[in-house]
């Protein structure tokens, strides 16, 4: 069921996106906190499952670090993974694929990473025919199956 994403959640998600996939100057690739990707992630996480996991993690972080998730700065990220490891892993396993799906759907990301931008059909790809010389050692073997009637 669809639910609203609160301002606190939006704040947190934006911090999270920046932390998980930052810009890369080495690969000339944008990070996940990029127009289009952010909105897609917000939309995709507008559901009760995320809401419930977010609340659970938020409560745990308030207990251990005395701050809400959206108030954390980047230096405090390692603390979440240490103090609430299982819950953090569960949360990341939930949001990770959503973020990656949005990220790799972005045309600018695909262009910068030299990934295909079109559909596989109709062009497909051209691959060379089998080099049958590779099969010579196998051809020369005795039969290896048990021939029973």
């Amino acid at each position, binding site marked *: 069921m669809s639910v609203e994403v609160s301002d606190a959640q939006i704040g947190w998600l934006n911090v999270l996106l920046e932390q998980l996939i930052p810009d890369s100057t080495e690969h000339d690739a944008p990070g996940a906190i990029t127009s289009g990707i952010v909105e897609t992630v917000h939309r995709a996480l507008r559901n009760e499952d995320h809401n419930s996991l977010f609340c659970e993690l938020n409560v745990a972080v308030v207990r251990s670090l005395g701050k809400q998730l959206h108030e954390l700065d980047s230096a405090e990220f390692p603390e979440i993974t240490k103090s609430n490891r299982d819950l953090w892993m569960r949360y990341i396993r939930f949001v990770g694929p959503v973020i990656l*799906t949005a990220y790799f759907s972005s045309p600018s990301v695909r262009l910068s990473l030299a990934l295909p931008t079109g559909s596989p059909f109709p062009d*497909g*790809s051209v691959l060379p025919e089998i*080099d049958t010389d590779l099969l010579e050692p196998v051809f020369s073997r005795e039969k290896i199956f048990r021939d029973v009637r």
Partner: protein
Amino acid sequence: MTGVVDVVIVGAGAAGAAVAWRLSEMPQLRVVCLEQGEFVDPQKYPSTTPFWEHAKTSTHHPSPNVRAGRFDYPIDDSDSPIGIANYNAVGGSTILFSGHFPRFHPSDFRVRSLDGVAEDWPFSYYDLEPYYKINDEMMGVSGFSGDPAYPEIEGMMPPVPLGVMGERIAKGFNKLGWHWWPAYSAIITRGEKGRGACVNLGPCNTGCAQGAKSSVDVSYWPAALGNGVELRTRSRVENLVFDRTGQLIGVRYFDGDNVSRLQEARYVILACNGVGTPRLLLNSANESFPNGVANSSDMVGRNLMLHPCGYVEGVFAEDLQSDLGPQGCVLLSQQFYESDPSRGFLRGYTIQALRGPGPLESAVSGTMRGEIPWGKGFHSAFKSRYNRTANMAVIAEDLPDPENRVTLRYDLRDGSGIPVPKVTYRLSDNSRRILSHGLSRGREVLTSAGALKTTGFGPVRNTGWHLMGTTRMGSDPGRSVVDPFGRAHDVMNLSVADSSVFVTSGAVNPTSTLQAIALRVADGVKQRFFGCM
């Protein structure tokens, strides 16, 4: 067609299509096939869009529980380490299958005699061989003759390409002196019968928009429909119907408007796969058959075999273009297929090379397994893996165990109110030992091929495509459900044509064998109608 037909077939997948076509060669027979799904439009397959990978986790996910499509029914597989995979449409699971199409070995039909376990089949490889040939012709199969792991197989189209990744793996096998062979593929590499030749789209497992993969909607069905078979889609069969004398008179089904209807038939053939067929037989229990139809042996639903599957992966320094080419068809190895007691297990396994994942799947699996870190190192790690991995599956033979079974959950029903199937399955010690051996040998191959790093794991959860053994075939009515021609021991005008009848599982993808058997079952039915083959 209205009124009583000669034959009603339940299910329009791999087996149902083959049996329908074979029966359609006799124009005197009035044949109707009932299918709960509908035709899929190849132009709407995910590979016609740039973001085809998304569909693998949603609309084209292998699990009907995740997909939850309009024509799917839930399957309770919570009591199994292997999730059940299928697809419900005209074409059945061949819509999503990889098209990897090896045959069983001669020894697979003589497991009891050769290895002292399980049972022998009531016929041999050579009895089935003519049907394999007909099936290859109808489906369209590519491969290479001369394989030392098989009796001679001829008449195939040229094999699908190995690609850079496949050649690296092949060299790895050659260094070790182990068997490998180009994949036997239900993929046409030359255009024929209005179908285009394979152009290496890649994502075969979300449906082939080119029509090169031989899913039965593009191979068997056009021929069967041309011969006059009526295919009624959006028709979900609820149970088999008997008259007061205990005679099977047809099937009751829900049409597309969920209205219950009776289709009367002189003969009924089930082709609903190793979960759907026992489900239907059990759900048809009545006064004459209180434990389910054709179940006097108590074997309906038992002996479920799933082919436990493990994956190995190697990461290479160079770009292997590993995501180019038909996803599941590269090469296979049967070096460890036949029994060798020194290995510590009975029977054996196939190693099947797979193309690498696309970018999204590379990133998701890499991050979830900790191979790609989140944060600063993300892009570098992604670039060092995408298209640089070689992947192989280990397909282990699964021995029959009566406790591995399909039953019904009367407390959980599908959209038509029919009880859903429950799968109870345990991985045997023998299967664990096979997987362990296979994963080690697989990693050895990849290391020999030059991998910098290898990993292996299994059983893999969503790999339960191969559903076998739940109405097994045999000559003894006390130990089997159907006779050597697939006819139920207990019901004279009922046959099973799908992989439920398998006596043992072999260690290869079962579609080629189940279709050959379906053709043979059809010949048995023809004989009953006309006294001739």
